[in-house]
């Protein structure tokens, strides 16, 4: 009997292909939209969070210039003001285990932009002055060559490590290790090439920079004796608060400042930035969720509309079927199967399209596609519910009419 009911339902669906297709289209669009939107929201959030995490979650940054009381306001140096408050003495004290027991590595940095040249090839590139620990602290593996040593930093050696794009631009396929390049007319020997990393957090292009010993950069390239920032790696993520205090105390006493609010430096922690960003992205997710919810509602209303119209317009058919002996149960089974077939077919197509759409958006937005089972279930569940309820409700109403009332229905 079920087989025959299915047969009746399929026949009825095939009788009006346009109507069946349009009904399915409503379901397809609803489900596709919801899956794509939710996936886009989650993908963007993952991307942002991962970028921040990529900096290293056990790092503190000491930036020159105070930022007042607020945790999130930028220090003076970030506003283009040159602050020369971070010096050699600071680095020395921070490396002192008795003064700052939770600090593992201290890595001072200077930055500048110079003309880089090799033979006749010239490029404008960012130059970062770092110490020998930079590679391990900031997780910069080398493709070839070796990191410069502590001796190189102490002795102001003219050695350089190239980012992968700079290496490609200056040398092409040639191996740069051992070659001599010029930075601002000063000769540097290339000792290593970093692996490609892509654009990191806050838009720093790690592949487009050249790393040289920090002392060399200070004296030979920039002619300064202060640092642009100091990266501090702490023992573990859990001691970040203590380490922040230690670093702050060391620097305050070294700078002879008693009021922490008047500090001429700022200690920033990527975790703070992460919590701020998580805040932003969760707002983004709520926003996208709202859009998804609205598309779900619109999709649902679309399904409701076409179901109500198509079933209502078939009241005469229901009347005829009853007149020749269909029971109410037969009518309901037929319309239930029809609604199930429409929503399941439409749902499957919608899920496939939604998945493909999510892949497409992820490719555009350059993030990993995330299509969660819950978003599929939500989209499918709501659309199916609308499809079933509004497919059966009018059929149920019509099946209660006497055959004559249904046949007379206009």
């Amino acid at each position, binding site marked *: 009997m079920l087989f025959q009911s299915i047969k009746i339902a399929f026949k009825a669906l095939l009788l*009006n292909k346009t109507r069946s297709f349009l009904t399915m289209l409503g379901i397809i669009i609803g489900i596709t939209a919801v899956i794509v939107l939710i996936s886009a929201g989650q993908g963007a959030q993952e991307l942002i969070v991962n970028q921040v995490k990529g900096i290293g979650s056990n790092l503190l940054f000491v930036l020159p210039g105070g930022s007042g009381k607020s945790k999130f306001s930028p220090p003076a140096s970030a506003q283009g003001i040159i602050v020369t408050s971070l010096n050699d003495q600071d680095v020395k004290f921070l490396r002192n285990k008795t003064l700052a027991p939770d600090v593992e590595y201290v890595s001072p940095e200077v930055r500048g932009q110079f003309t880089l040249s090799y033979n006749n090839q010239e490029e404008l590139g960012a130059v970062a002055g770092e110490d020998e620990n930079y590679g391990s602290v900031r997780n910069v593996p080398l493709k070839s060559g070796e990191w410069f040593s502590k001796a190189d930093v102490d002795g102001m050696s003219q050695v350089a490590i190239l980012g992968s794009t700079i290496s490609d631009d200056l040398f092409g396929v040639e191996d740069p290790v051992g070659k001599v390049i010029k930075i601002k007319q000063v000769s540097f020997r290339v000792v290593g090439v970093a692996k490609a990393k892509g654009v990191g957090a806050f838009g720093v292009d790690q592949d487009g920079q050249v790393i040289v010993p920090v002392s060399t950069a200070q004296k030979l390239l920039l002619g300064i004796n202060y640092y642009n920032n100091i990266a501090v790696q702490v023992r573990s993520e859990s001691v970040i608060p203590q380490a922040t205090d230690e670093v702050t105390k060391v620097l305050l006493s070294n700078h002879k400042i008693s009021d922490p609010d008047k500090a001429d430096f700022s200690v920033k922690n990527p975790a703070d930035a992460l919590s701020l960003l998580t805040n932003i992205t969760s707002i983004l997710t709520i926003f996208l969720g709202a859009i998804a919810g609205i598309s779900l509602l619109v999709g649902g209303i679309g399904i409701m509309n076409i179901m109500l119209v198509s079933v209502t317009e078939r009241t005469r058919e229901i009347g005829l079927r009853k007149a020749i002996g*269909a029971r109410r149960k037969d009518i309901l089974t037929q319309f239930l199967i029809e609604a199930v077939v429409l929503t399941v077919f439409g749902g499957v197509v919608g899920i496939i399209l939604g998945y493909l759409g999510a892949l497409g958006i992820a490719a555009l937005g350059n993030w990993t596609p995330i299509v969660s089972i819950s978003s599929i279930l939500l989209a499918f569940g709501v659309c199916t519910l609308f499809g079933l309820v509004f497919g059966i409700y009018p059929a149920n109403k019509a099946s209660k009419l006497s055959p004559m009332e249904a*046949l007379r229905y206009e």
Partner: protein
Amino acid sequence: MALIKMEHVRKVYNNGEDNEVAALKDINLEIQAGEFVAVMGASGSGKSTLMHVIGFLDSASSGKYFFDNQEITELPADALSEIRNQKVGFVFQAFNLLARTSAIDNVALPMLYARKYTLAQMAERSKEMLVQVGLESRLNHHPSELSGGQQQRVAIARALVNNPAVIFADEPTGNLDSRSTEEVMGIFKKLNDEGRTLIFVTHEEEVAAYAKRIIRLKDGEIVSDILNTIRK
């Protein structure tokens, strides 16, 4: 006992409202198995309403209706569906065939709801019925590809497919030309000759002339009930 027996049957539309209409007032009627009855009357006389109540397509507002010794007014909906499916066949003025469905599938429809035939049996019997009404060359045509007379013959085949004892027809020739009318009435006459009970509504004297008994209605009441002596 009579096949059909009605006692004080009343049918009121919009019951209790200002525009209340009594389509049938106190109908008392007996029809024996094997009869060939025409129900006549002007528009609004209640003849179609009577037909729908007799044919289980609509229920009476009050009164008693016995069919085959069963009190219909007390039966549950599913039992009525079974009677409509098994014991009677209905032919409509507007044919009421499923659009975009072949003649043979239209005829098979009541067998689907009988829930006891295989698909092969349904196809075979539907074909037989269509042959019987002279449409063996139109098995796979859709209603839109058939003339009115042919569509009505498909509808008759559909009414016959479950081999019912009674055929009801509501203005079966109302939408047909005179040639098709003759064909359809010829089929009815043949069915009656084979022993089936036929009850039909018409407002045309010529069509009523095929019947053995003519019942006339006016304003919801039976005004005459005579045997047709000048039968066509």
